[in-house]
């Protein structure tokens, strides 16, 4: 008997196909283009506990999935199907007639006719509840362990953050106190408080640093900086510490070291600070040498080797293995004898890891230690402005004409800011809450608001929104500055959207508070009888205060070369503009005037030149109203402004001062 021919018959018969279609261990759905079910196989009916007549011609594929997943189907799955004809391996929870959700893996394809029109959709469905359960459990376990680790780090980070605020208050208070005269004994006590709180803040910062790195928050920053300046700064700070212990601190830098390199300045400073601090701590005689070697240099990059060698107590071979573990010092007696947290080297190691480098150490007990690391850094062609220390010198009555509203609920902050206001003779009012701020600002006139972000009940964002929505132009115009200890990058968008103008990051130095106030408040008006020269001088000063590269730097991504090019273009445009303003002035030409003001619209927005904008519209008004004398005066004023603006830009280009402090 020829079994095969019988088998052929079965296979090709309707029955054969039907049993295959019905019994394969996967679900099958054929729907019209909108998802309405045309055919379903037995397997899927069985899984979902439906009768055939309950599904075919009645339900849509979408009816089988939960509401939330329909969003995914409509906005992503269906779209991708249309674009690429098939989408495979998507997870859905199909809901059965019994209401139970079953995890399924779905393959889908569009069925087209001969001329490429869509006639239907086909879904092949795999049940994988078991596997899905394992996956979920695994995923949950993974999530849980990650969460626990993150929670620990976070807790540490929050606690450190909280501790930092009061310590800063202590430090700031001491700095204010020191300016007064005390007896020698009192001064000594003050010095002790100052020194102790500085130590405490260093410790807390270290803890913060290490938790930040564990949470993975820290990324290497790439910014141009002067390496020699950084090293010399360190020498200046630590030389005196070393000398107090009768130890020499020597810095050797090769002459051909690149001027400006691109790298993570703060990390490098921190690594070197940790190493130098240790070296001084553990060395009681002899010298500490920081040698910087230029291992390789090309046009684009350089390889620098940093070697810090001391003649201190050294580390034994056994102890060498442990020194990079956090909270571990080489041995217990070190803590007793020298103090410290044992975090410094661990942080340095992690920082170097972040910078794609590693620390090497050679040491012999009793003979000293040598720590080394290498860094490959791109060389920058731009010059960088180094932060020179800025002494706050306030002229008497410089701020007499303004009034500031301080909104803050933390006493220590208020005390410090108040103290500065008193020192600088700034009239101010202080309120403890957002609600009081809104009442007070409507009763009195203020020139500036300092607004704490974190306040109970109504926070700084809410308060600002309320102030901005008050009736009256002045409430929209008054500058509001956010005071916050949060990272600027985290809150700057929210601050901007709530209607605040700037952020003063806590803890701030006196100079930062001073600069913020100067930036956002009008300069004092001079009495009329003042001679013109002085007046001009003052006007000039006032205008310079408004000029800023911030927006441009942000816009051009801090790319110095591009910014420079842009500034040169602006420079040429401005020179042309001066000529055109002169012609407009001489001919009283509205066309020329309007065209040149229009041309400068983007400059106004890029440099935040709101005064210029006002001046230009005033001029236009004068011209329209036929007030020609006033118009000419206004043009002269604008031309003067442009000349100063040109000077300023030229200065930025010449000095290469193209970096702004964020």
């Amino acid at each position, binding site marked *: 008997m020829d079994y095969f021919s019988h088998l052929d018959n079965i296979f090709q018969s309707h029955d054969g196909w039907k049993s295959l279609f019905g019994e394969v261990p996967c679900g099958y759905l054929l729907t019209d283009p909108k998802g309405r079910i045309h055919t379903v196989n037995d397997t899927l009916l069985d899984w979902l506990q439906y009768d055939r007549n309950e599904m075919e011609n009645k339900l849509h594929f979408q009816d089988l999935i939960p509401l*939330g*997943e329909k969003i995914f189907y409509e906005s992503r799955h269906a779209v991708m199907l249309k674009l690429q004809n098939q*989408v495979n391996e998507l997870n859905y929870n199909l809901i059965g007639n019994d209401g139970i959700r079953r995890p399924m893996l779905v393959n889908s394809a569009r069925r087209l006719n001969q001329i490429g029109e869509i006639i239907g959709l086909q879904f092949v469905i795999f049940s994988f509840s078991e*596997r899905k359960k394992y996956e979920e459990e695994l995923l949950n376990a993974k999530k849980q362990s990650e969460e626990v680790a993150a929670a620990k780090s976070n807790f540490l980070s929050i606690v450190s953050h909280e501790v930092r605020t009061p310590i800063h208050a202590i430090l700031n208070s001491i700095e204010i106190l020191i300016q007064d005269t005390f007896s020698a004994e009192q001064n000594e006590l003050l010095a002790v408080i100052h020194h102790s709180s500085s130590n405490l803040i260093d410790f807390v910062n270290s803890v913060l640093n290490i938790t930040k790195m564990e949470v993975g928050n820290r990324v290497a920053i790439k910014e141009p900086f002067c390496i020699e300046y950084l090293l010399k700064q360190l020498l200046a700070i630590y030389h005196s510490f070393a000398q107090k212990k009768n130890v020499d601190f020597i810095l050797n830098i090769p002459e051909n070291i690149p001027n400006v390199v691109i790298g993570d300045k703060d990390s490098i400073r921190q690594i070197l600070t940790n190493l130098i601090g240790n070296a001084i701590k553990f060395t009681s005689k002899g010298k500490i040498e920081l040698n910087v070697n230029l291992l390789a240099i090309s046009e684009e990059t350089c390889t620098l080797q940093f070697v810090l060698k001391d003649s201190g107590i050294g580390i034994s071979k056994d102890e060498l293995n442990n020194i990079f573990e956090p909270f571990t010092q080489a041995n217990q007696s070190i803590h007793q004898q020298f103090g410290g947290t044992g975090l410094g080297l661990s942080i340095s190691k992690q920082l170097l890891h972040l910078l794609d480098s590693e620390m090497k150490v050679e040491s012999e007990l009793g003979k000293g230690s040598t720590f080394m690391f290498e860094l490959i850094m791109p060389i920058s062609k731009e010059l960088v402005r180094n932060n020179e220390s800025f002494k706050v010198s306030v002229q008497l009555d410089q701020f007499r004409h303004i009034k500031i509203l301080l909104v803050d609920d933390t006493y220590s902050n208020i005390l410090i800011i108040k103290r500065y206001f008193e020192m600088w003779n700034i009239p101010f009012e202080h309120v403890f809450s957002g609600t009081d701020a809104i009442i007070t600002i409507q009763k009195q006139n203020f020139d500036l608001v300092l607004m704490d972000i974190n306040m109970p009940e109504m926070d700084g964002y809410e308060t600002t929104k309320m102030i901005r929505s008050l009736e009256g132009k002045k409430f929209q115009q008054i500058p509001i500055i956010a005071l916050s200890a949060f990272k600027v990058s985290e809150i700057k968008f929210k601050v901007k959207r709530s209607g605040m103008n700037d952020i003063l990051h806590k803890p701030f130095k006196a100079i930062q508070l001073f600069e913020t106030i100067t930036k956002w408040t009008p300069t004092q008006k001079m009495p009329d009888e003042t001679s013109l020269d002085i007046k001009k001088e003052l006007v000039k000063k006032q205008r310079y205060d408004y000029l800023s590269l911030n927006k441009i730097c942000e816009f051009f*991504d801090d790319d110095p070369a591009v910014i420079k090019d842009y500034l040169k273009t602006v420079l040429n445009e401005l020179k042309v503009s001066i000529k055109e303003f002169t012609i407009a002035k001489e001919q009283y030409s509205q066309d020329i005037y309007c065209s040149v003001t229009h041309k400068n619209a983007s400059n106004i927005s890029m440099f935040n030149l709101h005064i210029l904008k006002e001046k230009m519209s005033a001029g236009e008004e004068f011209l329209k109203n036929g007030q020609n004398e006033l118009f000419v005066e206004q043009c002269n004023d604008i031309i003067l402004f442009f000349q100063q603006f040109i000077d300023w830009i030229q200065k930025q280009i010449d000095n290469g001062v193209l970096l702004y402090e964020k």
Partner: protein
Amino acid sequence: MTNILTQNNVTIMGNGRPIIFVHGFGCDQNMWRFIVPAFEQEYKIILLDLVGAGDSDPTAYNEHKYATLHGHAEDIVEICEFLNLKDVIFVGHSVSAMIGILADIQNPGIFSKLVLIGPSPCYINKEEYFGGFEQEDIKGLLEMMESNYLGWSASLAPGIMGNSNQPELQEELTQSFCKTDATIAKHFARVTFLSDNRKDLSNVYGECLVLQCREDIIAPEAVGKYVHQNIPKSQYILMKATGHCPHMSAPKETIDYIQSFLK
């Protein structure tokens, strides 16, 4: 140097009055391929991928900036300013209809006309407001997205599912459309579907056209009407098209309505 154009993978074609198309949740500028040809002759077309979608710069994604839809609105404004566009027509699908509205409010006058396809100011049901979803539904979406994007199942899939006939082709296809990073997609989904911009509608400055589909579960008819009633200058059209993406399922009808609105 990265600028706003590379950040948002901006594509520009044609000449004339500028028209900017912004895709919704789940896809990228590829969505507009059936619509764009009809406008190429008369308009300057600007296509873009929202940061986090398609070929936008993934490093530009900043959780804080994009914690609300305003972050994307700021990008749109910046693109218009960078390209110095005037008298712009904005066409936004789904969540991008709201993004367009926020950009319009932020910079009144930036758009002369706005076409809002399947807009919803708030997807979650609130007191006396029907958005279509409960918080729980969105949670379900996020969980489902997680399993899909994490690729747990997908990476195990060939074992259970067998390979597709043309694995190479498949690979290329899944990579070229609607690319998105798992973490970003989830964050964007959360921001999108949990946002509530109902209060903003009354502040819209430009003239709007609301294109509403039938049987749209993401933006039901009641929501489209709500948008229309709360925007000062708006027209409302209930299309024949069904689903959430008429620009894909019924491009002709969509084009016709947009063109007659622009006349």
